[in-house]
Structures are given as structure tokens and as C-alpha cells.
């Protein structure tokens, strides 16, 4: 059995002295060397002036602050060249404007047969009552495909830029009771969620269902009235953000995680690609398109426009929400 030593006995042992030496706790010079407190350093005016002179000399040597004649001429030339360049640029731009066709003339390039055809035959060819929707999702569907992909690429870029470190995330999710360092709290501010603001939660309870239903209405009604995939998706995304703000990340994670985002975006974009490839293929080869147009004005009409609207709306809603989440805490 080991015997407990008292503190004074322990102080005499070798181990105590060894650890004291190891930890450098002993001050060898205490009570042995006479010490004076250091006098505060006072700078005289002479010293300051000398220091300034030395600093200036050093700066001159390094950066050539004291300009030589050639440097001064170069700077003058630089300023002059800037002014001349700007003048030339303004002149060129104004010249281009003057070459634009005059407003209100009958044979402007805007007044070609394309717009007339859109207006006159758009209803028959696309089946959409809303001409704008018929244009962007049928005649110019390729543009809209590009826009959806631009949004997707933008989210991916934000994901790469703002993504929080994976290790840190694991650590913070493992120990919830742990005190978080400031840095961690800054990256992952989910730890202070939800704030349970009564007013915000009440407002969200009333507003979020209405906002999301309005968004769905705008998407589904895109070929009949104003609206469409992009605006409806943005409305739904705004509703999701409001819900997230009111109730915190834990509630939204039940139905929207990174996986959801990935699969919804991937599914919608690939559906868009495949559907439009089919219609391009049949259109280019003058084949019969098997997708029925339906009666104009009915909700199930205008061929591919309704499903394409839904696809675009899903992508945009997910992207808006993902942007917000990424900005908030760098990851879902």
C-alpha cells in the first residue's frame, strides 16, 4: 500500500524538484538578485526627427517616394493617356449608338416576322394562352434551359466557396453541450437556433402556407396567366426561407437536406433536358409530336409547358433556399 505523503514531505523529494524544473515554476533569481524597475522610454524631439528621417530615407530607397524626373513624367503621361483613352471609349460608344436604327421606323430589325408569328400563331403552335410562357418554354426553351443551369452552377460555386469544414461540423454535431469557440459559432450559427420568437412564429404560421400555395398556383398557372416557373419558384423559396427563420434548421431538415436538393435539382434539370431533346428532335425531323396540346385555357393544356414549368420551379425554389442556407452556415 502506498503511503500518502504530506505536502511538506513531498516538497523535499526529488520528483517535486524535477517537475518544478520541468515546468519552470521556480524563479531562481527571486530574492537573490537586486532588481530595478526599468525606466519608461522617453523620446526626445531630436530622436523623433532622426527616426522620421531614417524612415523616409528607407522608403525613398525602397519605393522611390521622392520622384525622379522620369517617374514624374511617366505619371503625367499615365494620367493623360487615361483621359485620352476614356475619351476614345466614350466617342466609340456614342458612335455605336448613332448607328442604331431610328425608333419607330417600319423596317427596324425588331419588326420582323418573328414577333408577329409569336402573337398570331403562338396559341395554335404552343397551346399556351400566356404568350410569354409559350415563348420562353417553347420557342426559346433552349434559353430557359441555359438559365436553369446557370442557377445550378451558381449554387455549386457557392457550395464550393462557402462550405464549412467537414471536421468542424462533425465535432459540433457530436457534442451539443460543448462550449463552442467563437470561430465555430461564426461558421455554424445553427447552435443558437431556434430563437423561438413568438411574433415571427405566429406570422410564419399564417403566411408560409399562403405564400407556398401562391407559389404553386403561379407555377401551375404559368401557361394561362402571368407567372411561370421562375417567379413561382422564387416565391416558394422565399416562403421556405421565412419558415426556416421562424422555426430553425432542425424542423426544415426533416424534409429538406442536401440529398433532397441534389436529387430534386438533378431530376428536374435532366427531365427538362430529355423533354426538350424530344421536342427538338421531332421538330427538326418534321415528325409528329405525340404530346397532346389540349384545349387552350384548360389547366392540362399546352403540351410540355406545364411539366417544364414545374421542373424550373422546383430548381429555382431549391436554389433560392440553398443559397440562403449556404450563406447562413455553409452547408445544409
Amino acid at each position, binding site marked *: 500500500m502506498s503511503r500518502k505523503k504530506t505536502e511538506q514531505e513531498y516538497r523535499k523529494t526529488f520528483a517535486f524538484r524535477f517537475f518544478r524544473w520541468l515546468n519552470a515554476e521556480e524563479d531562481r533569481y527571486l530574492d537573490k538578485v537586486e532588481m530595478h524597475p526599468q525606466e519608461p522610454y522617453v523620446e526626445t524631439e531630436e530622436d523623433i526627427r532622426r527616426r522620421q528621417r531614417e524612415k523616409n530615407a528607407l522608403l525613398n530607397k525602397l519605393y522611390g517616394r521622392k520622384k525622379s524626373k522620369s517617374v514624374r513624367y511617366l505619371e503625367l503621361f499615365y494620367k493623360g493617356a487615361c483621359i485620352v483613352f476614356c475619351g476614345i471609349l466614350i466617342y466609340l460608344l456614342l458612335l455605336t449608338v448613332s448607328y442604331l436604327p431610328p425608333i419607330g421606323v417600319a423596317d427596324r430589325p425588331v419588326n420582323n416576322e418573328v414577333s408577329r408569328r409569336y402573337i398570331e400563331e403562338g396559341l395554335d403552335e404552343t397551346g399556351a394562352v400566356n404568350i410569354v410562357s409559350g415563348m420562353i418554354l417553347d420557342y426559346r426553351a433552349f434559353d430557359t434551359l441555359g438559365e436553369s443551369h446557370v442557377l445550378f452552377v451558381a449554387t455549386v460555386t457557392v457550395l464550393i466557396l462557402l462550405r464549412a469544414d467537414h471536421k468542424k461540423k462533425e465535432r459540433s454535431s457530436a457534442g451539443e453541450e460543448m462550449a463552442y469557440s467563437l470561430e465555430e459559432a461564426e461558421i455554424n450559427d445553427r447552435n443558437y437556433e431556434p430563437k423561438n420568437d413568438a411574433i415571427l412564429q405566429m406570422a410564419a404560421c399564417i403566411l408560409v402556407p399562403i405564400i407556398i400555395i401562391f407559389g404553386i398556383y403561379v407555377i401551375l398557372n404559368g401557361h394561362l396567366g*402571368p*407567372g411561370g416557373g421562375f*417567379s413561382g419558384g422564387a416565391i416558394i423559396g422565399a416562403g421556405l426561407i421565412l419558415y426556416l427563420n421562424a422555426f430553425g434548421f432542425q424542423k426544415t431538415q426533416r424534409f429538406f437536406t442536401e440529398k433532397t436538393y441534389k436529387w430534386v435539382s438533378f431530376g428536374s434539370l435532366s427531365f427538362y433536358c430529355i423533354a426538350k431533346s424530344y421536342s427538338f428532335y421531332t421538330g427538326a425531323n418534321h415528325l409528329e409530336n405525340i404530346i397532346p396540346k389540349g384545349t387552350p385555357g384548360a389547366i392540362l393544356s399546352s403540351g410540355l409547358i406545364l411539366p417544364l414549368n414545374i421542373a424550373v420551379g422546383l430548381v429555382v425554389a431549391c436554389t433560392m433556399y440553398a443559397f*440562403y442556407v449556404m*450563406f447562413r452556415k455553409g452547408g445544409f
Partner: protein
Amino acid sequence: MTVFTYMLMGFLVCCAVSVSLSKNLLNSILIYMSYSLVMSIIWVILESPDLAITEAAVGAGVTSILFFVTLKKIHAIDEREKRKKHEQEED
């Protein structure tokens, strides 16, 4: 109707100028939001409701929220931080 349109246009110009002149970043975002709202009304007057819906949802809604989050991330609207700085300056 034209008087109303001119009033909106004037408001638009005022907003655009005051966004860049405002010293408080939070204020400039709020002014930017109202700019987008007025812009969406103007789109309705110009008979393009599609654009109006998009402008109201994206311009006034999502973009401003992203601006807010960015400001919070760079501690531009953190009140406690500001107070701390103020105290340090007074010391």
C-alpha cells in the same frame, strides 16, 4: 395614371441616389428593397405582370435577405459589436 407613373419614376431615382449616398449599410439595403417594390409596380403599369411577380419575389425578397445574411456575417449589423467599439473609442 401618368402622374402616378411620374411619381413612381421620381421615387425610383430618389431611391437609386440615396442607396449609394446612405452611410448605414442596413439602411441602403432597406432602400434597395423599396426600390425593387416600386420597380415591380412600374412593371405592372408597363403591362408585364410576369416581370412584376419575379421582381417582387427576387429583387425585394430573396436578394435582400441574402444581403442581410452577408451583413450579419461580416458583423456590419451586430449591435453589441458596435457598442463595444464605441466604448473602446471613448476609453
